């Protein structure tokens, strides 16, 4: 004998409400990590705050499309990067022409030639490169390269996650990552070595 329909409905509704609460809690636990990535994808704290709020509003509305047990941080970042592209924030920030970046040893060689090989030692690096200069250099990289550097080197996402978040092939993630890191070092060299 099956139960009367209202009881089944009530149980289904209660179960769904519980899943939603669980989803929301899990998503909110990731807010700080989501913000950290967002902050480096856009130009200002205000933009980052807006973007994170829009992301959570959309995530909470579409919680049913999240598959429990999959990588929620990547899922949230995918929403966030899509919103960021939609809002055209990155376009405003794109410089018209970007010269080709220098090679991988460029910054190290510049530091070494201005202050000797010892300038490459850990304590000296921290002394010579300010945290501000790093933040500025990062903001200066072309967005398509910066997005990948921010996701992988700051957000700790794997190549595969970054590929999924940005909807680009993994090979493109790797080549943009390599170029982005070189561009970052070039900017740092320009900023910190007169």
């Amino acid at each position, binding site marked *: 004998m099956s139960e009367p329909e209202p009881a089944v409905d009530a149980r289904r509704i209660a179960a769904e409400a519980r899943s939603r609460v669980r989803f929301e809690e899990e998503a909110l636990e990731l807010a700080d990590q989501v913000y950290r990535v967002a902050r480096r994808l856009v130009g200002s704290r205000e933009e980052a705050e807006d973007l994170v709020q829009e992301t959570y509003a959309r995530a909470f509305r579409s919680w049913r499309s999240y598959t429990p047990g999959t990588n929620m941080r990547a899922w949230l970042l995918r929403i966030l990067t899509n919103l960021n592209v939609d809002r055209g924030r990155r376009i405003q920030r794109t410089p018209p022409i970007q010269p080709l970046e220098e090679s991988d040893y460029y910054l190290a060689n510049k530091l070494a030639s201005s202050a000797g090989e010892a300038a490459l030692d850990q304590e000296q690096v921290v002394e010579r490169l300010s945290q501000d200069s790093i933040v500025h250099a990062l903001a200066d990289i072309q967005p398509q390269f910066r997005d990948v550097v921010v996701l992988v080197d*700051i957000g700790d996402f794997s190549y595969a996650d970054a590929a999924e978040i940005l909807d680009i092939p993994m090979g493109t993630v790797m080549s943009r990552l390599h170029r982005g890191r070189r561009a970052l070092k070039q900017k740092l060299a320009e900023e910190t070595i007169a």
Partner: protein
Amino acid sequence: MTERDPCERCEELMQDFLDRTLTDVEWREAETHLAGCDYCRRRYRFEETLRRYVKLSAAERMPPGLMAKLEELRGLDAMA
């Protein structure tokens, strides 16, 4: 055939070396060169330091108040 500059080759392998995405053959190639080359070793170590430092410098905590705003969004539901 011209011999390639081994340091230039080592430079090429650096990012993948630190990302641990080299093939075994390339890995051995880099390790062998690094074992005998102070110049490249210093640059690899510099890159490691730089990566850690970039991560540290880029980390900015969520502004106070944002969490409360996100909490307020709870319960938003397209079906509601």
